[in-house]
């Protein structure tokens, strides 16, 4: 039987294919260690992790900005210092552009969100992810392909799937088919970890798109993973209701799930690795990806090993800070950035990386 593929679309920050693969593999390896029948086994023997990293699009733009600003700054400095305000203004704008090209936290994290949400860089990113998905489906078939988005990656993934399986499932004037079929190429599962797709929705509302299970959707199952103390997905969360509107009521609980964990093993509860080592998150994934169905005792023993890793002090601090979080702004983009900054500050206080 073909190994299933898990396509991973990362969130904000500095990522590439190798780092994404490592983060997921490391988390799964840790999780394997909780269960006797999986301990010591290689993740790669069970599932094919396929990163769809898109950071290079942002990095290339930042690099061009830096180069351009550097050249301009050098020349402006050589101009007569008694310059009118226009030149001063240009110099200040140039300084800002130069800063945008540097490797500071704002530029390596928040700028990703801004560049994706506000600029046309979103389209080549979506095309890149779409090609990764299409190649995987062509190779092993839709049911053997699961896609996972994390944080900003949930918005990228949602938008990509909305266009990939979109309603115009017809050949264009040149006879080129511009869509995958939600029937013949239906995905095995869509997994949204720390889902911000609704907060960052643009050309289509997430509740109206084809990215759903059920007869009008493109996937067999749709699962959201949300940590109760992670402030970022609390901003305009996607909470479909069981009223027959999004998907039929008789299948709602079978093909859709919102898994909300609350245990804390590190301060950065937003991290993908933190989500994946939680049994509530990885057990359904393992079952769907490679048929892992532990007996009750093995599962309980595994969960106990996980809970031995939880850290009470960090959990308390996070509970205090984010337990009753309200969005800082009606503008969801601003609210996402504010929530992320607050979490980042807390994580750094604990000496962890974000």
């Amino acid at each position, binding site marked *: 039987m073909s190994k299933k593929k898990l396509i991973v679309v990362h969130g904000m920050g500095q990522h590439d294919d190798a780092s994404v693969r490592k983060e997921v593999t490391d988390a799964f390896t840790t999780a394997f260690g909780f269960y006797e029948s999986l301990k010591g086994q290689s993740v790669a023997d069970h599932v094919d992790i396929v990163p769809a990293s898109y950071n290079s699009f942002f990095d290339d733009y930042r690099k061009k900005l830096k180069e351009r600003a550097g050249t*301009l700054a050098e020349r402006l400095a050589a101009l007569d210092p008694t310059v009118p305000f226009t030149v001063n203004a240009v110099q200040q704008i140039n300084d800002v552009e130069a800063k945008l090209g540097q490797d500071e936290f704002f530029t390596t994290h928040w700028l990703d969100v801004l560049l994706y949400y506000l600029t046309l860089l979103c389209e*080549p990113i979506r095309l890149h992810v779409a*090609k990764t998905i299409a190649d995987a489906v*062509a190779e092993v*078939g839709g049911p053997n392909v699961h896609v996972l988005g994390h944080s900003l990656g949930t918005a990228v993934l949602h938008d990509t799937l909305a266009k990939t399986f979109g309603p115009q499932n017809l050949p264009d004037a040149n006879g080129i088919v511009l869509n995958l079929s939600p029937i013949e190429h239906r995905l095995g599962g869509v997994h949204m970890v720390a889902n911000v797709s609704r907060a960052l929705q643009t050309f289509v509302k997430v509740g109206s798109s084809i990215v759903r299970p059920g007869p009008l959707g493109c996937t*067999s199952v749709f699962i959201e993973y949300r940590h109760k103390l992670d402030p970022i997905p609390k901003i305009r969360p996607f909470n479909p209701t069981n009223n027959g509107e999004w998907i039929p009521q008789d299948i709602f609980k079978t093909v859709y799930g919102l898994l909300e964990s609350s245990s804390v093993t590190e301060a950065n509860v937003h991290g993908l690795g933190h989500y994946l080592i939680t049994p509530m998150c990885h057990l359904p994934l393992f079952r769907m990806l490679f048929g892992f169905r532990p007996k009750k005792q093995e599962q309980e023993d595994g969960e106990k090993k996980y809970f031995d890793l939880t850290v009470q002090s960090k959990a308390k601090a996070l509970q205090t800070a984010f337990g009753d979080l309200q969005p800082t702004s009606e503008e969801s983009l601003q609210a996402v950035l504010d929530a992320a900054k607050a979490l980042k500050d807390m994580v750094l206080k604990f000496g962890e990386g974000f």
Partner: protein
Amino acid sequence: MRAAIRHAVWIACLLATPAMGVFAADPPPPSATTLEAACTHAKIDTEVKTAFLPKMKEGAVEVRKSLCVEGATREQILAAFALFVDRLVEDKWFSPYGGFQGATDPLAGVQRALRTDGAPIPTIAVVTPPAGGDDVLEVAGSVFQPADVEQCNAKTDGRGCGPIFDEFSAYYTYAHNSFSSRGAQAFARSVAGLSKQWNDYLDSSRSMTPLELLINSALYKRDETRQFSPPPAVQYIVLHPSLVIENVSAAVGGEQLKEALMIEIGGMNWWQQDRWYLPTGGSIVAVYSDRPDIDEFGYGLALNFRSVYTIGYTRHGSKDGAFISFDLLKLVQDKKKILESYD
């Protein structure tokens, strides 16, 4: 039409079966002329961990053979696939494990689609209810639950019907992908084509300041649809600063040729224009330079070539000026060095 082909293949198989003997466990290697993506996985893993449906594996291999070895058309592969499905239904494949609730069969919908010309053929996936519970099969949004999980438990060491469904879905998908793969490949090709257009846009178009990126993006997104689309054909230039070398012949000695700050106030650039001798775009400009007895600000027009090189004309009060961009200056200098090296 599809039904007629199906019957013909059925008869051919019946006649051929005594001579063929036991079906091979693995299909022959793919044809050398076939580049089908699905054929990279032409070999089913021989280490089958479960063996609930051995006949199904053989049938799936036969369908895949028609793609990877015989190079059949979609219609021919569908006919082989229909045969495969019909056999499973006739054999009541899930009866040994208790059947499905409501005496249904997920393959019934597949058979209906196969009998309808042009209808897409659904996949079948195993779904684990996220909140817990028994595994089910999902077909295009319909869910099929086992009628008696205990019958499965007896065969799967208490693991429910999931392991059986896993095997079923794996073989079904293996056969199904024999024809569905082509559609996915066609989409992948069209996406690759669009990606190349976007890479060309990002590499070859005029560099954009954050302001220009925001403005061009807003215009692009204003017309955005649910389809993937190519990059915009035209870039709008707005308050774009750069440095130029300007010559104002009316200036006093030693001040004619000077560096100047140019701001392209507004303009347009058609970045795909690839004839080097034709401009890609132009803009209205303001140029600042400090020269005695010459107005500091001049206004004029600029023309861009290959989205990078700029030449233009300015008017400082009543005095004419001309300028080129540093990129163009560097290009000229580089060419000059090459020519001089031949002396």
